[in-house]
């Protein structure tokens, strides 16, 4: 029984069957990658997991509780954090403020009308945010305007923000899309480090095979809305069905 259990999930957009009959189990504290060619339904599946879409059929259980019908913020409070394809951060705010927000969300819940408290006098939260910035090697950038950072730094900040919510499941949607090789390698190292140091389950959707094979312990190949095979990276590499559906076109994909 995995921490995330997806059973018979189907989703149709008009005439398009985006997800056919998806069954997937993600084991606790593992790193599970979902790969597949364009239009395979990876993003649809992710949007179902975070509450952005409600599937037509099936069930999604996280830690024994259904996530279906819950709002994104509720699912996040349950312990699922999402890293976006393009880094989603609070660009108008400082790096420190970006980090303070998830710390408040973790401690105080989805809404707290604390309008007369002084932000920086909350030592507990400030210290937690500072230590996370240190973990991310960004403490010297704390006063920077978040929007003015490089893409790699934004990604780092976003991952740090997700981690400070202490999620049990971290969802990554093509975390290295559009990144230079150096930034990609930095991100891989960061994710490896996170995997080693924390009790966290990582589910990753990725195009870049280099990233997938460096990180994943199990891989599910999705094609035309249904899982084709699920196995360890070594077996996936040589799998004839996968080669046929997918690998031929991805050697050069970034």
């Amino acid at each position: 029984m995995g921490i995330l259990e997806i059973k018979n999930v189907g989703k149709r957009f008009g005439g398009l069957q985006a997800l056919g009959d998806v069954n997937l189990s993600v084991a606790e504290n593992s790193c599970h990658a979902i790969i597949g060619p364009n239009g395979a339904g990876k993003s649809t599946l992710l949007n179902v997991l975070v509450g952005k879409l409600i599937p037509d059929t099936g069930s999604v259980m996280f830690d024994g509780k259904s996530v279906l019908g819950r709002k994104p913020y509720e699912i996040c409070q349950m312990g699922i954090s999402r890293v976006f394809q393009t880094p989603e951060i609070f660009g108008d705010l400082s790096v420190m403020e970006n980090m303070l927000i998830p710390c408040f969300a973790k401690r105080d819940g989805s809404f707290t009308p604390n309008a007369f408290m002084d932000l920086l006098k909350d030592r507990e939260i400030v210290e937690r945010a500072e230590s996370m910035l240190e973990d991310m090697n960004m403490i010297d950038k704390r006063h920077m305007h978040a929007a003015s950072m490089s893409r790699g730094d934004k990604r780092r900040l976003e991952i740090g923000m997700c981690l400070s919510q202490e999620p049990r499941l971290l969802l990554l949607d093509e975390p290295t899309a559009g990144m230079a090789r150096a930034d990609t390698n930095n991100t891989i190292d960061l994710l490896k480090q996170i995997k080693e140091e924390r009790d966290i389950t990582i589910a990753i959707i990725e195009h870049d095979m280099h990233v997938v094979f460096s990180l994943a312990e199990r891989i599910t190949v999705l094609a035309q809305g249904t899982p084709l095979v699920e196995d360890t990276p070594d077996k996936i590499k040589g799998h004839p069905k996968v080669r046929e559906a997918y690998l031929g076109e991805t050697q050069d994909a970034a």
Partner: protein
Amino acid sequence: MFGLDKKHTNLLLLVLALVILAPFLLNPFPEGSGMAQFNAGYPDLMQRFVIFGIFAIGFNILFGLTGYLSFGHAAFLGVGSYAAMWMMKLLTMNIIPAIAVSVVVAGLFALLVGWISLRRSGIYFSILTLAFAQMSYALAYSVLTPITGGETGLQPKLQDPRILDGELAVGASPKANLFGLEMGASFEWSVGSWLFTFNVGYYVAAIAMLFAFYMAIRIFNSPFGMMLRAIKSNQQRLNYTGLNARPYTLAAFVVSGMYAGLAGGLMVAMDTQVGAERMFWTASGEVVLMTILGGAGTLIGPVLGAGMIKYMENIMSKINSTILHEWFAFLPDGLENFVVTLIYPFIGKGWNLTLGLIFMLVVIFLPGGLVEGGQRIAKLFKRKKPSSDTPDGKTTPAE
């Protein structure tokens, strides 16, 4: 001090000083001199500065922080005014219950409007608030005439019950007061050819504004204020950070509605009458202009914007062609007429044209409003002469 850091304490003290000294600062020209028409230190206008300052500070909490552009905030001002007026008719001419009730009623009305309007964001939110305000205006004018007085509006009448007040003396009219201290009462002090007016109503409104400003600073510096800025910056990330944006925006909406209600209540306290035109959409638009002109999202900006617009509305509009001819009398006749013809459309009734031009210039060249202008000037001075500390005698008549 007051739970604020040094920078914000200084800002609050600066505003305190400006507000206390306003009767001097706004009356820099001697009576009877040619420039006396630029004096703004008379009670009616000073009251308007601070009351619209409160209105704009509150509006800025919603618009400046969350980015939700309400186009119907005058409705809360109007509702607050009507509520205050009814307190004066039913209970007492003392302004305390009137103002308290105006804040509460406007807050409740904002809760209803916000609860419905905040289901949408962006332009749809703006249109919903505009629709609510225009409905309120239309209702106040027609169906709700028994409550609002329709076209004639409401004033305190001699035969009103006023159960807490004693019988009025024969021939006396009901006057707004604070435990007997009449709002209209003024103390005039003449120094040489200068005349300074200290008005009770102005100082009452000024205390309310200082309180409103202090609360705004607290909100800006709180985690709650940071969440509101986060909503403006990236609502998607906020949702995926486990925070529910709706109660935050609704709280900001209600708070800014209460500020509008306070402004409405004070308006009635200063000038005991209210009409539906106070809720008309141009009044909602005006507070948007004030906030953007001064600098949305800044603390002092909305107050500056409100001051500037009210100053222009009351002072620029008084300049007429006779005054212009006096000014340019030194020019040869033909040229004088030409210059006057050229300037005439921008003054008097044309003051809106000037305001529009200034607004356009600010939005294009100073997107951060007058505050950004001030910051740029300050930066320029710092860069030019880093050591010197004499501001070369340039005193700005700050409002």
